[in-house]
């Protein structure tokens, strides 16, 4: 008979404020098999864990229940603790009386009663836990980095620095991401290209880093140490090995199109590199607009290419590679302000966004560094900046603060003044959030030295009158309504998750929040990990981040990934399905429902009849432990360790033990 110890955590006052933890422990002493129960302020602390180990010895305990927070937080901690106490780590169960009890109930008596039930469930289960042994799998020493912005670039550099191989998969024709579009960066005002380009070159020249640009991840299977990834390399129609980026082709291409990189303020050709410093410096043919592809006309690029690199017949290629770890660095996209009718539904040409403004500021950008009105190309002298467009707007945008708009707006106001000291900058803000090194000082400088006018209030309406923009706002500090006629309005639109974020999350089996941002394993203590071991997060795909934070998380994620790769082999979860061949009838209904192809049929010799027969067999390295096979199995021959029939029936019985007596 198992000897169970129950440890009830106060979690400071997180639990004890609502749940009478002492009563819970006292009553738990009466549960079947419980030989010891106590409460303690912080079970996850070192003294808390010591207490468990001490009590195991003192009371000869063989099973442990900790009633505290969610298993997603501390199951691992206490498993290790159980193991350190000399027990099998799976002789442990967690009773979640915080997230699912003390935090969601107000009534102390009701909450205590529920906590008692939750502990009862755990003790009923733990007594029936099987000892499980961890098995190991070898590790593929290569990291996949999805996304080639500053986040992915930094991660790749750090992985390579640690001596491991990295592969960057980037959707666009060049790496560089959003940062490549910026003019200067706050608060130091160094030029974005000057600090990014060397890193892009480093990535390109490293022997350990491979670039798949114009490519997308299509399928991910496997698990930590052995992810199998299918990558679609979209047809560039240009042979990367032959092309040396001389540029003859795009100089001669007759098709002119709006440039996405320049926010449609400038032009590009149908064969193009998105920007001059592109890495790789190999163009791509825009198949939608290429005359040859669509009308079998032109073909100039092929004719003029000195290296015969143009290949109109090239097709998409899907390759498969194996990786030990994956770093997700897919970044963000900008909120589309055209849902705001009061800002003109996106139909006013001179209502632009921060990214448009960056391109205009850039001296190699579409306007040559001149701040102009997109409607007529005339210089913009009076510019209104509006912060929080789509941010902090539960009604129609995102509920969160996008975190960097305050800073980049201040920077843009400053740069406007530097480009044209006569220009006027008005900034509508709600709160200035400048919590970063030298950030507050920077914003002060923009107001004081550069004379940008800050107005506290959200703009209610923008409309056009006689070709000028009328901005109707207010300054709540002075308590007045304000109307400004502006040449140009720059909206600091929210940073939001990419539209296909959910698809990627499902592919990687990582959770995402209500805003489609990827969720870290722990908001404080595991900020770059995910609940899927071996998948790490960096940059703005997790939450809006500025460049310093992005680079920091990129380095953090790559250290985590390299840490994994430094092991020769990795343990896998032993909570998987197992077949009792004595009972198995060989119907293989289980094989039908297994999503992982982990069940095969196997021939055995029956112990009683000595005849050969078929039974099901589980491949441990493929089984993910979902348990669909259990439910499908009619004779009940398959069970799932960690969630066995016996355990769950035991839980149900424990819950209803007193019910039967009452009625």
């Amino acid at each position, binding site marked *: 008979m198992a000897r169970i110890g129950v440890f009830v955590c106060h979690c400071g006052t997180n639990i004890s404020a609502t749940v009478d933890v002492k009563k819970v422990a006292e009553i738990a002493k009466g549960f079947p098999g419980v030989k010891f129960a106590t409460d303690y302020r912080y079970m996850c602390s070192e003294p808390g864990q010591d207490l468990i180990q001490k009590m195991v010895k003192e009371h000869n305990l063989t099973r442990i229940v900790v009633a505290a927070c969610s298993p997603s937080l501390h199951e691992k901690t206490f498993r290790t603790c159980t193991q350190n106490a000399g027990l099998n780590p799976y002789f442990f169960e967690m009773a979640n009386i915080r997230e699912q009890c003390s935090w969601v109930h107000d009534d102390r008596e009701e909450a205590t009663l529920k906590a008692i039930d939750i502990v009862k469930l755990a003790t009923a289960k733990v007594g029936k836990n099987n000892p499980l042994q961890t098995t190991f799998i070898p590790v593929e020493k290569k990291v996949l980095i999805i996304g080639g912005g500053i986040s992915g670039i930094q991660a790749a550099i750090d992985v390579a620095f640690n001596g491991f191989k990295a592969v960057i998969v980037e959707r666009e024709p060049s790496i560089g991401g959003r940062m490549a579009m910026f003019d200067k960066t706050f608060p130091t005002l160094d030029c974005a290209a000057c600090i990014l380009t060397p890193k892009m070159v480093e990535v390109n020249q490293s022997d350990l880093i491979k670039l798949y640009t114009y490519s997308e991840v299509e399928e991910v299977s496997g698990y930590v140490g052995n992810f199998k990834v299918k990558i679609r390399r979209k047809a560039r129609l240009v042979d990367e090995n032959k092309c040396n980026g001389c540029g003859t082709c795009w100089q001669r291409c007759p098709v002119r199109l709006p440039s996405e990189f320049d926010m449609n303020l400038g032009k590009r050709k149908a064969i193009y590199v998105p920007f001059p410093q592109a890495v790789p410096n190999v163009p791509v043919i825009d198949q939608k607009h290429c005359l040859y592809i669509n009308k079998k006309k032109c073909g100039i690029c092929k004719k003029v290419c000195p290296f015969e690199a143009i290949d109109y017949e090239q097709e998409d290629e899907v390759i498969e590679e194996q990786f030990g770890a994956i770093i997700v660095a897919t970044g963000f996209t900008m909120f589309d302000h055209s849902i705001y009718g009061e800002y003109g539904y996106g139909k006013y040409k001179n209502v632009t966004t921060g990214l448009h403004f960056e391109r205009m500021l850039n001296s190699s950008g579409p306007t040559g560094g001149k701040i102009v009105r997109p409607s007529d190309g005339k210089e913009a002298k009076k510019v209104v900046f509006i912060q929080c467009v789509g941010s902090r707007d539960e009604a129609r945008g995102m509920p969160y603060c996008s975190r960097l708009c305050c800073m980049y707006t201040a920077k843009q106001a400053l740069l406007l003044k530097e480009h044209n000291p006569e220009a006027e900058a008005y900034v509508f803000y709600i709160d200035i959030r400048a919590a970063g090194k030298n950030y507050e000082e920077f914003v002060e400088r923009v107001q004081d030295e550069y004379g940008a006018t800050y107005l506290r209030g959200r703009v209610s*309406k923008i409309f056009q*009158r006689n070709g000028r923009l*009328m901005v109707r706002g207010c300054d709540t500090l002075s308590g007045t309504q304000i109307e400004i006629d502006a040449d140009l309005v720059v909206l600091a639109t929210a940073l939001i998750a990419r539209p296909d974020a959910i698809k990627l999350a499902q592919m990687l089996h990582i959770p995402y929040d209500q805003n489609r941002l990827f969720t870290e394993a722990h908001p404080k203590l595991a900020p770059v990990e995910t609940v899927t071991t071996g998948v790490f997060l960096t940059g703005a795909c997790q939450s809006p981040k500025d460049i310093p934070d992005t680079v920091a998380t990129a380095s953090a994620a790559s250290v985590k990934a390299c840490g994994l790769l430094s092991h020769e082999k990795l343990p896998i979860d032993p909570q998987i399905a197992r077949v009792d061949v004595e009972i198995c009838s060989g119907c293989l209904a289980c094989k039908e429902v297994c999503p992982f192809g982990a069940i095969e049929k196997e021939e055995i010799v029956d112990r009683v009849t000595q005849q050969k027969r078929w039974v099901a067999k589980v491949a441990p390295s493929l089984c993910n432990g979902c348990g669909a096979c259990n439910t499908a199995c009619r004779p009940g021959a398959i069970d799932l360790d960690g969630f066995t029939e016996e355990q769950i029936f035991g839980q149900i019985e424990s819950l209803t033990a007193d019910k039967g007596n009452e009625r």
Partner: protein
Amino acid sequence: MMKVAYYPGCSLHSTAREYDISFQLVCRKLGIELQEIPHWVCCGSSPAHVTSHLLSIALPCKNLILAEEMGLDTVVAPCAACFNRLKIAKQEVAEDSKLKKEVQEVLGKPSAGKIEVKHPLQVIIEDVGLKKVEEMTRRKLQGLRVASYYGCLLVRPPSVINFDDPEDPQSMDNLVSALGGEALPWAFKTECCGASFSLSETDIVFELSGEILNEALEAGAECILVACPLCQSNLDLRQKGIEKRRGKKFNLPILYFTELLGLALGMSMRQLGLSRHIVNPSKLLERKLAVT
């Protein structure tokens, strides 16, 4: 033939007679039979909802019940304020069971729930269809530059009204285009005219309606099209006063959309009661549309 209950509201029987007349004429032409709700009462308008929430719901509900008792499934309310109050009452009673009970107690009858509340614009666009209207047009509004003014209550709150866009509505503009006129884009379609302050805080009406008139004129309008008797009254009746204050001539006729529709369908100014306007539209209409 489509049959709907008709809730004219107080204004259409007094200050907005010409809206009533033109709407009835247009309906007859388009094959819509209007049956006025017998013994309808005032919807309570703003004075009710700023005085008692229950009263502001109970009064419209009374009318909805009367309409439902006629055995019809739609009630049409041309006054934007009435339309707004009827819609809000219907929705609030449907969503709030406590309120529903109170209203029942006040009215002594179970409150109506099924009847649909529509504005004439909705009936014309959704039920009749602009295509049919276009086909029936006898007289194109060729070259007539129209600023459509929707006001507040026809489009807000969008969650209740659920009809046209709250910031840049299009229904009247589409109607004008269908009739061959030039629908002007402008930014004051849903700015407030001062609404029920016409009598109490007239200065506010002078200011707000003045802004609207000014913006319409700047946008190149020859007339303003409205769908609410309050808006019409503020822009029309107060126009002289506004001109005096701003020292600027507007001379902008304020027409109900039903009047313009009636003209396009071949009716005469006299039939439609256009002589009732304060700012005389006849010169403009004679010149542009050759109507009499």
